[in-house]
């Protein structure tokens, strides 16, 4: 239920509409993949993100929970 940092890999490029929504995540393009990295408040936010990726017809490659960035 609690906040955690995730790394999500998607095949291809993300459409602008989604990018605008992902301001609080770091987006890195590693052709042919796009990597989203950042902290999400809870599981509902993670599933929301995954369902959006799915709804846009993008292929999800990997979802990993990663150690939080030492900031």
């Amino acid at each position, binding site marked *: 239920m609690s906040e955690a940092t995730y790394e999500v890999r998607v095949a291809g490029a993300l459409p602008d509409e989604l990018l605008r929504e992902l301001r609080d995540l770091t987006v890195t393009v590693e052709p042919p993949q796009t990597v989203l990295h950042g902290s999400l408040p*809870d599981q509902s936010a*993670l599933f929301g993100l995954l369902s959006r990726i799915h*709804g846009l017809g993008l292929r999800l490659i990997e979802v990993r929970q990663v150690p939080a960035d030492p900031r």
Partner: protein
Amino acid sequence: MTTDLLASKFAIPEPPPFMVARPRLIRALAPDRAPPVVVVTGPAGTGKTQLVAQWARETGPADHVAWVTLEDEDARTGMFWTYVVAGLRAVGMSLPAVTPPVPPSAPSRSFLTRLAAQIAEQPDPAVLVLDDVSALTDPRWATELEFVARHAGQRLRLVLVGRFDPPMPLHRYRLAGRLVEVRGGDLAFTRQEAAELLAWHGITLSPPAFAALLEHTEGWAAGLRLFALALAGHGDADRLVETTTGEEATIAEYFASEVLRAQPPQVRDFLLHTSVLGTFTPELAQALTGSPDAHRILADLEHRNAFVRRTGEEPHSYRYHRLFAELLRAQLAFEEPDQVPKLHYRAAAWLAEHGRTADAVAHAVQAGDWDTAAALLVADHAVGRLLLEGGAGRLGALLRDLPEHADGAAAALVAAALAVAAGDPDRGAACLARTGAATSGYDDATALAGRLVEMSLARARRDATGTLRAAADAERLLDRVPADRLERHPELRALVRTARGTAQSWLGAVDDAVATLAEAGAQAAAGCEYPRIEALGHLAVIEAHRGRLGHAERLAHEAVRLAEAYGRDHPPAAAAVALAWVAVERYDMHAAGRHLRAAEPAGDGPPDGLAAAGYAVVKSRRLQARGELRGALRVLQEVRGEPGDPAHPAHPAWLDREIALGEARLLAMTGHPDEALALVDGLPDPSRADATVVRAAALLAQGQPERADDAVTPVTEAAGVPTPVAVDAWLLRASVAAGAGDVGRAREALRRALRLAAPQGQRRAPHQVWSQVRRVVREDDELAEQYRALGRGPDRAGPSVGADPSGVLVVDPLSQRELEVLGRMAEMLPTEEIAASMYVSVNTVKTHIRSILRKLSASRRNEAVRRARALGLI
């Protein structure tokens, strides 16, 4: 389409008997300065719905809380907006000009714009609660809802409840301070709330046991309540907590071992077996389980707060809490997998018996019994729905995955209907072939479905004779259907009538077609929208052709209005062609061009033969009026040259004839009168009035005025000649007389032509010969006035360009782009929307608007729109 909207979709859920008040969350939901968007997310069973329901009840009716409970199929069946509009209306919002889209239409931009505009005009703000938006699989609803909310001013607040974050621009809302979020962490029960919940259930725990329980469940509401349920009647609560919280058990295991085990066997079976139902009455539960105590068991479960709640519908019906139902179904599938299809099958049988076809079909599909699903649909005469909605309606969505090899006549018919509706007649024919040689060996319902599918298939293949044959059989069978059954399916008659009228028109039986199509066009029952729009459009083209311009215009406007109301983005092509036809005959070339553009098939499937042929006729006349005779001729030759085999002609016979006559007339005008004569003489029925007039025109072009006059005279003396033909005949006689210098006869013939043309404002034909006969009327003021009056036909708002009531003249004509912007201004679209829809920048639109205001001498937009209407520009 008519759907009996379930009252339970709009009911704010009743509070359970043991309700823990959560004021901290209520306050979080509704801070003093309420933001426009509230999102409540958290895993299953965290009390989201209960919390929002409690808040909705407490804010009271003054706040207009519209509640819609969504389910998985609402996204697939395009019912989302139907429910939203119904939900808003249910709380007293007045939305007069809004009709939700009818499947298979998706909500159009104009529907969303209109809805937003009407919400913005409400005196009081409303709250729209959408419970479980996570159930909606297709994310389009979010974009559409975002659009409506953005344009509804401050009149609509959204409360979105779901298991995960909805696909809305939450980040943007957050930044703008327009979002309130209640998330899983907030929903977790605090120590105090958990203590209160247990106290409700009469459970006391020692402090260590209570702490262990809270830690184990992490404050998860469902976990706490399941535990309370298991503890009810359990002697030693502390020990149970010890045994259950020690291990890492999944909730499903815990549920199966502790909660279900604690129920008496009869109740346990009842719970498992009824879990296959969505919303159900005690009677249905009884039929399914064979348990005579269904009423008592359900009342008892509700009282004990065992995740069952009443839906507030009449007669009383219940549904399980979503999470609870999921757990029960998982348990049922684990314990008695072979029972699952049997239960669905039994539910289907009971529902079908009680007239709830769609629900019955859904259960038959879940039972994996496609044949029964199809048979239920056919027996209920619901095949018309499939033909009209295809895979977009609820039934179509349920049966879309029907396997190819499903045998049984009903399954083959359903597959054929879906294929025809999807525009694949070949596959439809292949499916239909599987039903056997003829459906006559079957019962009436199957035979009727078979004929309806055959009829639609014949229509799709432009086989008019086959369509008529199948339609006649279908009508005979329809007469044998009991009236109460037919009442539920008014679309069947509408389908058959429209098909019959279209086929009659195709075969050239125009009078019969008019009678049949008028019947279909008057069919206003719900579910008949699409056949009705089609019939009106077709009728409008016929009437325009017969010269009944005012009537054609009314019919076409009605078709356009209905299509727009039911969520189509484009006006029906036939109606747009009819309006263009009327405009061109009234010599309003600008309007004709606008309607022709509206009729352009926008790459959506094969162009309808009627609209394509009518389009060519109007376009050709428009070019002719501009003096581009070669272009006018080419348009007609192209459309006539379309390859068509005689059994499946590409256009209605009467339109083919009109095209040939137009071609002949243009050939005569461009110096090929011999070819023109050959073409006319080669027509079927070459001595009919319409052909006679064109023959006379060709003779005149050959330099034989006397023969031309002799040929056309009988037409001017006959009764029952269509007005456009009679007008042409008199004009031809006027030309002959003027050419011979016989002023008196020329004037008389002109007077007759103008008198015939006046009632419908037919200005085009007289205008075409005016230059030839002008000198004849030079000294005849009366005649000149008669001619001028033509431009101000009886049912015209005024001349296309000229003085409007305020006495302003348009000095500078508007450009094409300006007219486009003006049209969108008339739709009340904001500047940004206009820019987006025209793919130009906001500044460009602003420039256009300034220029429009200048040209129309208007100071404000609405004034410009009003003035443009008065001038007939839009």
